[in-house]
């Protein structure tokens, strides 16, 4: 009797290992519907740089700003980011409206800002390019780096002469 139990136990262990191995191989092989995304971008705040702001709105509280942002869809891509106005020097001075939080996306080049503003308007969202560059004091990520480099090589991930103080 004991021999039978031992044999059954051994069989169960072997079967379990086999199932585990098959499952491991199965999970390692990418299925047709799996998405393996590329490397993540480093969140560049452009601290100290002079940046162009595309403004989507100003709100009293972060909650209001988050709620407004959730309602502004840009298809499957990221649109605006919620930031406190204090994150940029010279920001509040240009707005002249109450509120401490804004929906923004920031850029180093005028082409990048104009392209985003045009897209936002096409999606039916407000988009104003502030006339004067603001100085980034660091803080939260606000979309920097999501514009084409002027030489056409890829995304612009470094300061340019216009963005340097």
């Amino acid at each position, binding site marked *: 009797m004991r021999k039978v139990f031992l044999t059954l136990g051994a069989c169960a262990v072997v079967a379990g290992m086999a199932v585990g191995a098959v499952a491991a191989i199965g999970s390692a092989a990418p299925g047709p519907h799996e998405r393996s995304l590329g490397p993540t971008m480093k969140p560049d705040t452009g601290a100290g740089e002079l940046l162009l702001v595309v403004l989507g709105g100003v709100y009293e509280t972060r909650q209001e700003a988050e709620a407004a942002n959730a309602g502004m869809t*840009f298809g499957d891509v990221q649109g605006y980011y919620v930031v406190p106005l204090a994150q940029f020097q010279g920001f509040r001075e240009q707005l002249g409206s109450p509120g401490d939080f804004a929906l923004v996306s920031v850029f180093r080049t005028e082409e990048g800002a104009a392209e985003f503003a045009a897209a936002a308007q096409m999606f039916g969202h407000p988009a104003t390019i502030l006339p004067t560059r603001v100085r980034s004091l660091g803080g939260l990520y606000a979309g920097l780096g999501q514009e084409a480099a002027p030489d056409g090589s890829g995304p612009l991930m470094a300061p340019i002469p216009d963005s340097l103080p």
Partner: protein
Amino acid sequence: MGSSEHPRERRRRRQLAVTVVSAVLVLVPLTLGWHWAKAGWRDWHYNYPATPTGYTQIVNRFGQPCNADASAISMPWTASDNNQTYSPRFHKKLGGYPTEMVPNKGGRSTNLDNDVYGHIQNDHVGQYAKSGIWGYFCRTIKGTSTWSTHAWGIAIDISAAYEPQGSCRSTVNRNFAYVFRNHGWRWGLDFCDPMHFQYAFGY
């Protein structure tokens, strides 16, 4: 039994069959010719790049995100519901090659602007392409910090107003999704984004 059929009746039947076959032989090419001429379109299937799988292959085939080629070509596409003509931009390798339908835009293949678009029009399913049509956009995927396939100009959103992201069912795009699939594209419905078509797998 059959031999009891009257010869005149047999001749009449043969004449009818010949007439029908002749009519088909004449009318089918004429109809097809008229159809093509009307649409100004011929399917070329010229120089398609292989559809990449995963990030590395996308970069190897189409370059860095937001590079100059990613937005090099544009095409007019009029939405059927609001008659607005959109100008989605896309990668140089996915279209812009001169054809009857497309002026020379310096592109390298006939994929999107001639073959996919032409098939959709020719199959009379263009009526299902509704407002909200765009291609290249140098942005990350919503809520992430990884590049969207739009940043390479290898994705196009169609009928965005009718096909919200997150919906795992399609309302209008299902009527022409087969055309994209037959030309190397993946439909975003696979990951509950029915407005989205991308020329890449595993991403």
